[in-house]
Every structure is written in structure tokens, then in C-alpha cells.
């Protein structure tokens, strides 16, 4: 589970890292990814895991438009305006999908849904394993992209010093669009790969929003490697807390960890102090 948490959270951390904006609507793109994948399964007969690139593409397109048309206008505005623009986006996307798709819960059935592999005494459920593998592949692809491609380097330059980047001939507005679209695309990708074991409905983003922020804050806002560490840590915390506490308290434990980390080490577990 931790690997998936990492992928859906990398998007959030990427957007923050490059643009300095916390996207409160990020979890809604998880929901969009799940819906795209569900429709691909229901009408095209595509396996949700194979539909993940499609989810990525749709969210990428929406993200591109949202960044260009809306968020670009508040990049220099006070943080209050940024926070509430993305909160407004959250309300619009959630209720828009409620309007379009209705409030019923939808899930997919796949051949491998109930299968599990046994590794000695350990049983691993196949859908979890696939989700983990896909997440890992996606994370590696992003890492490779950011490290080696020209776009990746330009984007990192923009994150470090937008003005200097612009002077070097980098189109920073384009970089912001790519970063935002890529960020929400990754989250949507994560939404598609978890579809085999999570039901989708318009409010599903709300269930993941705390989790995503905890992952990102644990790893340090803006740090991609941190999100991976944070994702695994949150997976472990969840598994452990479900051993000792009733299920209703699971989120509470996450919240407390979240506030505690913010208070003690706001730069995250692996982040360097700035």
C-alpha cells in the first residue's frame, strides 16, 4: 500500500516543489483518475491497470488547462488567494462529478481480484502487488525524467530560481504547466491502479486527502524522494495502528502524526533544513 501512497503523493509534492503552491484539490484528481479508469473498464473492457496511462493523460490535459487558465493568475498573489483558489477547485470538481456521475459507488471486477501469492508464511494479495509494481515503475520513470531529460532539468532550475531560469531562456510558464499537469496526472495514475480494490464515488478524494498530506509532510513538502519514504512510512503506520487500535481511530493516528511532524520537523524526515 505504501508504494501507491507514494505515487499519489508525488504529484502533490511535485506541484509544491516547483511552484510553491499546496494544491488542496489534488485528491480530486485521484477521483478523476479512478473514474476514467472505471469508464474504460465498463465501456471499453480495458483492465483498470492498463487504463492507468489513459487516466494519466486525461488528468494531464485537465491539469494543463487549470494551470494555464486559473492558477497561473494567482502565482504572485498572497498565499491566502492560492489556498482558496485550489479549495474552490476542489468544490467544483467534487460537485461536478457528483452532477455528472451521480453518488453511487462503483467498483470493477477483475480476474485477479481475490488472488494472492504465498511467500512462505506471508500472503500478498495480487491487486496490491500489481498496484505496488505499477507505482514503482511510475516513480522510477518520473525520477528518470527529472534527472536526465532537458525538461526535467529545466523544471528543477525553475523550482530553484524562477528568475534565473527565465534569464537562461527557460519558458517558466510552460514549466509550471508541465509540472502541474504531470503532478495531477501522476495522482490520477495512482487512482487507476488502486481501482481493483477501492470503490469509486465523487467523495472518494476526501478519504485520501489526509493521507496524501501526511505522506508529503512526512517526506518534506517538495521532495520527490521524501514522498517515497513518506509513502512507505504511512503504509507501515497504518498497518501497525490497525493492529493496536480500532479502525475508526486509524485516521486519528495519522492526523496526530501529521501535526506532530509539522510541529517538530516541518522540513520532513529526509529533507535538508533550509
Amino acid at each position: 500500500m505504501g508504494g501507491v501512497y507514494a505515487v499519489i503523493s508525488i504529484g502533490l509534492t511535485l506541484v509544491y516543489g516547483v511552484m510553491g503552491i499546496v494544491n488542496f484539490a489534488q485528491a480530486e484528481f485521484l477521483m478523476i483518475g479512478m473514474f476514467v479508469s472505471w469508464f474504460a473498464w465498463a465501456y471499453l473492457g480495458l483492465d483498470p491497470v492498463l487504463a492507468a496511462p489513459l487516466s494519466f493523460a486525461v488528468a494531464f490535459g485537465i491539469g494543463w488547462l487549470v494551470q494555464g487558465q486559473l492558477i497561473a493568475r494567482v502565482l504572485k498573489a498572497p498565499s491566502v488567494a492560492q489556498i482558496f483558489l485550489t479549495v474552490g477547485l476542489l468544490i467544483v470538481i467534487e460537485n461536478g462529478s457528483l452532477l455528472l456521475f451521480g453518488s453511487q459507488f462503483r467498483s470493477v471486477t477483475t480476474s485477479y481480484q481475490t488472488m494472492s501469492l504465498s511467500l512462505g508464511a506471508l500472503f500478498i494479495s495480487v491487486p496490491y502487488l500489481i498496484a505496488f509494481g505499477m507505482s514503482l515503475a511510475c516513480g522510477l520513470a518520473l525520477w528518470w525524467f527529472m534527472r536526465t531529460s532537458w525538461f526535467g532539468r529545466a523544471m528543477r532550475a525553475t523550482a530553484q530560481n524562477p528568475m534565473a531560469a527565465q534569464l537562461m531562456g527557460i519558458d517558466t510558464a510552460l514549466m509550471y504547466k508541465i509540472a502541474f499537469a504531470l503532478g495531477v496526472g501522476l495522482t490520477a495514475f495512482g487512482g487507476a491502479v488502486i481501482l481493483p480494490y477501492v470503490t469509486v464515488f465523487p467523495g472518494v478524494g476526501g478519504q485520501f486527502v489526509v493521507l496524501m498530506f501526511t505522506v508529503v509532510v512526512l517526506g518534506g513538502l517538495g521532495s520527490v524522494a521524501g514522498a517515497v519514504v513518506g509513502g512507505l512510512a504511512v503504509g507501515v503506520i497504518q498497518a501497525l495502528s490497525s493492529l493496536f487500535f480500532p479502525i475508526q481511530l486509524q485516521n486519528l493516528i495519522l492526523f496526530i502524526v501529521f501535526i506532530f511532524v509539522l510541529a517538530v520537523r516541518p522540513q520532513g524526515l529526509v529533507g535538508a533544513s533550509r
Partner: protein
Amino acid sequence: MKRWIAILAVIAIAAVLPLLLSPTGYWIRVLTFTLLFAAMAQVWNIIGGLANQTSLGHAAFFGIGAYTSTILVLKFGISPWIGMFAGGFLGGIAALIIAVPTMRLQGHYFALATLAFGEVMRVIANVWTSLTGGPVGLSVPFVPPSIAAYSFKQLLPHAYIALIALIIVTVIFEAIRRSAMGYRLRAIKENPAAAEVIGIDTTKVKLQTAVISGVLMAMLGTLYAQVAVFFDPDTVFSAASISIRVALIAILGGVGTAIGPILGALFIIPVEELMNDLFSSGAAGLSQLIFGVILIAVILWRPRGFITVFDSLMARFSNKARS
């Protein structure tokens, strides 16, 4: 002088207005909630506007106030008037608990931490069934109507109590803004490092505003409980309909100004009611969707709130008068 006449005129209109509405009708309810939310947004404005710390967790204090007074009535028969101060005390302590570790945080980080705090309170209220009744919620018991018991047959007295509360918190807000503390806060807002250098204890000043804001918010929670009569953890500790909404009202109106939250509430609450009225027969989510669109539009159009529209109108007006 002119300013005072204008303020008195507005208060006079606000005082007469409830009398003109049907005492059992729908609009008096809208008015009561508009006044109450204006007061809540004003309280948020103390920390959000003056200290420049965007809290998204004010539902925590609000819910504490609503639960404290109602539980005291239910278990011990203590009047909500007293319960209101008990709730305010607990709200202040809660504000201290969350503010001490998080006050150093800024902007997005502080917003995230307070958002999580509100959610913690919501989960606790849902789980601690023996005290709060859990997800089922609590009903304020019916007692014979009297001022001492804070129980009325009609909404009219509630509308006036909300109006008085709004006036009180607005006066407190202005008093803080104009006091030495207000100047310290402004210094911190402009340049925290410079403020430290000239000897302002930035953490202490911010803590004070957080506690004042927490206490007042909890007291307003009691007012809400008495009007609503029934509530559950998901309403009073709601991130969307309390925390975000009060911040939004202040922001749309104009952060850091005394008139901002009032303008914001006068716009948002009636618009919301109107939407619910117009579209409740239509598809679910439509009214919320339109609400979100309006929110985005206003932020893009006026990132500093309606107050700027008001100001530019005034400027145009006075320019014309001069020429």
C-alpha cells in the same frame, strides 16, 4: 464624526430589520445565520487577518463551544449562558494546544496543520460516544422559554443575540487592530525578522491572537447550538462548512478589515440559501458547484476581496465630488 454617523445608521438598520421579517419565517433564519457567520468570520479575521496566519481549523473551537454548553445543560442543567464561558475557556486551551507547536509555521504549512487539528477534533467527537453521543449527535433539551435559560419560542431573540455578538466581536477586532498589539502584529506581518530585532516577542503576540480567536469562536459555537437545537460532529467540526467557510467569508469580504467579514457574510450566506432554494429540486451538487465557481471567479477577479470594489467605488465617488 461622519464615520460614526454611518456606523450608527448601519446598526440601526440592522436592529430594525429583524422586526420587519415574519418572526416564524424563513428569512429571519437566513438573517440570524448571516449575522452569526459574520461574527465567526470576524473572529477568524483576528488570527487570519491581523496575525496573517490562515487557519483552516476554526471548526475545532466552534465545535468545542457547541458541545461544552450543550453537554453541561444535558448532564447538569447548567444554563448555556454559563456554558458559553466554560466553552470559551476550553476553546482557549485548545487554541493554546494547537498554536504552541504550529505558530512558527507559515502560510500553507499552518493552514495544513490547523486543517488536520479540526479533523482530529471531528474524529474524537465521533468516537467518544459516552460524552458526545457519537455520530448520532446531540439535541439541546427543551426548557420553558426564558432569557436566563437561553431558550426562546421564536427566532427573533436569537437574531438580536447574533447581532449583539457581531457588534461585540467587531469592536474587539477594531480594538486589537488599533492597540499596541495591533501594531506589533502589523510589524510581524510586514517583516518578521525586523519585528524580532526591535524587541517584539513574535511567538507570544501570535499566541495571544490565537487564544483570543479560539475563545471567541467557542463562545459563538454555543450561540449556534442554541439556534440549531440539534447538531452532530460532522456539522460543527466540519472542515468545509465551518472552517473553510468562515475563512472564505473573511477573504471574500476583505481580510484584515473590520467591514470585510460583514460584507462577505452578507454575500455568501444569502447566495448559498438562494442556490439551495433554486436548485434543490434539480440535480444534487449543482448549488455547491455554482458556489465553487463563484468562489474561483471572485478570487481571480478580486484576490483581496470585495472591500476593494467598495474602496474603488468610494474613490471614484470622492474624485467626482472634488472635480
